């Protein structure tokens, strides 16, 4: 049926095909058939992979390579969302089918697979990418072929493309409220900034540093270590010498594990009054590798924790575990990935069309009231309004939520005065 929508077919023939299709559907007596006003020719004028009863989307994450460790959860969440949407009747009466591609932790591969999904498969939307590097590689492809990417990871900001919906936090949402919180409730006065050496930690630390200066407080040390660095004894000694009230950390990957293990071995206990630990790079996923006993007492700033106690989250966690096993853990990015298909569904239904240009018009203001993190809304800049939260790491690898911002925080990918 796909061909019936391509533009080189004469109009009379298309009309015939559409009415034939409508007739077939009516014959079948399907209860969930697309209503007359959502006929394929109406809702899909740009030749996307939409038929009378299915619509195809793409899932593009790394299943192999270094990043598979992080991206597995996102893939699982997206499949769960798609399954639930299908069970509740699909999108405009159409069941979602997905084509999954492997980015293989290789940024050019992300661009190549994006092109394949958009040009060959004509998918209506893509849920995918994880690292900023992969998104930056795929972005020109999405802009060139006018695709729509739902990107789940919290990231450094400084980007806003009409072809991307950013369902994770941008840096200011994650950092500012949490620094305010530690300053107010813990009386923190001196900070030690520590990160892996690439764009996300560096941009995040820049924002943190500016904000700390604004509050009139002091940064006593700032350090970056190469990705994959595994020896942290020197920096631990420096921390002991400078005695900061808190360490603000954005260390990622294998370095993360090495860092927390070595800190513990050096006799630093985050449960003590000083130094405290506030990290923006540890979710429940990372704790699996670090080990809860090595992290206990640290604070993590995220918008979502698996332990959130609202009805939405409880049913989300239950469904996730039913689908992917009782031992699954759900981190911040996994939840953000789960939002992607839902936001897309609501946008399509509001627009009454799968056309990307119509989606762009209706996206600002789309709400997800059933989001596990609570309630989220899409901003004009296609990032999400969302709450900031801080979790206190427990020994079992989960977090106790100790702080939640009262209001939704406005996404601000180009923060003035922080660059």
């Amino acid at each position, binding site marked *: 049926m796909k061909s019936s929508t391509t533009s080189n077919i004469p109009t009379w023939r298309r009309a015939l095909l559409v009415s034939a299709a409508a007739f077939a559907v009516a014959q079948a007596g399907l209860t969930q058939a697309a209503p007359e006003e959502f006929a394929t020719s109406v809702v899909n004028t740009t030749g996307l992979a939409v038929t009378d009863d299915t619509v195809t989307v793409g899932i593009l994450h790394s*299943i192999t390579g270094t990043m*598979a*460790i992080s991206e597995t959860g996102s893939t699982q969440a997206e499949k769960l969302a798609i399954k639930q949407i299908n069970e509740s009747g699909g999108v405009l009466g159409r069941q979602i089918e997905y084509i999954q591609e492997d980015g293989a932790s290789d940024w050019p591969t992300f661009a190549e697979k994006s092109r394949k999904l958009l040009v060959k498969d004509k998918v209506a939307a893509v849920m995918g990418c994880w690292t900023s590097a992969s998104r930056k590689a795929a972005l020109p492809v999405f802009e060139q072929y006018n695709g729509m990417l739902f990107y789940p990871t919290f990231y450094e900001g400084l980007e806003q493309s009409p072809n991307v919906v950013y369902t994770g936090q941008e840096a200011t949402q994650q950092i500012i409220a949490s620094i305010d919180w530690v300053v107010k409730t813990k009386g923190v006065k001196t900070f030690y900034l520590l990160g892996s050496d690439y764009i996300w930690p560096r941009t995040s630390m820049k924002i943190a540093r500016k904000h700390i200066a604004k509050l009139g407080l002091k940064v006593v040390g700032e*350090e*970056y270590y190469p990705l994959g660095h595994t020896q942290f004894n*020197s920096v631990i*000694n420096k921390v002991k010498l400078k005695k900061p009230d808190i360490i603000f950390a954005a260390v990622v990957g294998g370095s993360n594990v090495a860092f927390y293990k070595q800190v513990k*071995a050096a*006799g630093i206990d985050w449960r003590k009054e000083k130094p405290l630990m506030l990290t923006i790079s540890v979710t429940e996923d990372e704790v699996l590798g670090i080990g809860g*006993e090595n992290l206990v007492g640290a604070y993590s700033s995220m918008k979502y924790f698996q332990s959130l106690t609202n009805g939405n989250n409880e049913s989300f966690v239950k469904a996730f575990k039913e689908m992917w096993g009782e031992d699954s853990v759900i981190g911040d990015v996994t939840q953000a990935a789960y939002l992607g298909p839902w936001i897309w569904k609501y946008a399509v239904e509001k627009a009454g069309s799968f056309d990307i240009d119509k989606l762009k018009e209706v996206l600002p203001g789309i709400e997800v009231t059933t989001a596990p993190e609570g309630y989220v809304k899409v901003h004009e800049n296609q990032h999400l309004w969302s709450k900031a939260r801080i979790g206190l790491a427990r020994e079992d690898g989960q977090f106790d939520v100790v702080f939640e911002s009262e209001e939704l925080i406005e996404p601000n990918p180009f923060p003035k005065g922080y660059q």
Partner: protein
Amino acid sequence: MFDGYTGSELMAIFAMQGFAGLILFSVLVLMALGLAIIFGQMGVINMAHGEFMILGAYVTYLTSLFFETYLPGLSSIYFFVAIVLAFIAAASLGAFVEWALIRRLYKRPLDTLLATWGLSLILQQTYRSVFGAREKGVSLPDWMMGSIPVTDMVEIPINGIIVMVLTLLITLSVYFIMQRSQWGAKVRAVVQNRPMAAAVGINTSIVDRMTFALGCGIAGIAGSAFTMIGSTGPTSGQLYIVDTFMVVVFGGAANLMGTIASAFTISQAQTILEFFMSGSIAKVLTLGMIVVILMLRPQGLFTLKIRR
């Protein structure tokens, strides 16, 4: 940068920093020993060295699970069992790889580079399929993760001491095996003159297999020890491979003393630099220093004069 600190604080920090240097030294030696044996004695560049290490780490993980389930009373000492098992597993895999792959490539040393690199990719994906893509948290007995407080500021990490002791033991055993045992004499004979060694009745292909297995086994021990200080995941081995090659090449490939001297130089340089500047810059300067020295002395710090 030392304004406002008391003398005793500075003393304490220098003591701690010296200790950090020693830990890094032990870690580097432990990583590089296995590779140095294989590279130095056989001329094989084993790009899959990191994956043999991670095999040791996974064996440790499995052993910890086994002890938790079946012998919870003994779980505080499971680690020593794990080290032995890690050695056996990595050495057996090493022997198999030598038999299946490496021995066909002795005449083409550069091809071993490509073959073992391919092997490393295969092993990574195997780990990913078997153990899952996510990192595993290896739970260690409490006594191994603590520290011994000497004064308020000086605290000695126990896992650092364990790594140091382990490194010392393994280095000594390797020394005795290579220099004092009959088998070591055979290995050295094969390195110095293969046809001659074969002519006097040494089974050179068995010697090759055992040497490769020994190198891989030591990598397994290193991986097992590194569960204390690092991550255990399918690609964690990649974190160590660059440093490992750096140590071996800088030390001069054919000599174990060279490996030790090179690990010492690199670890001290890096620890001292890291203290005075940020981690990335320290790494750049350390690598820069190595490049300059290798330009002046391409054969590395120590070399063995042998007849080819």
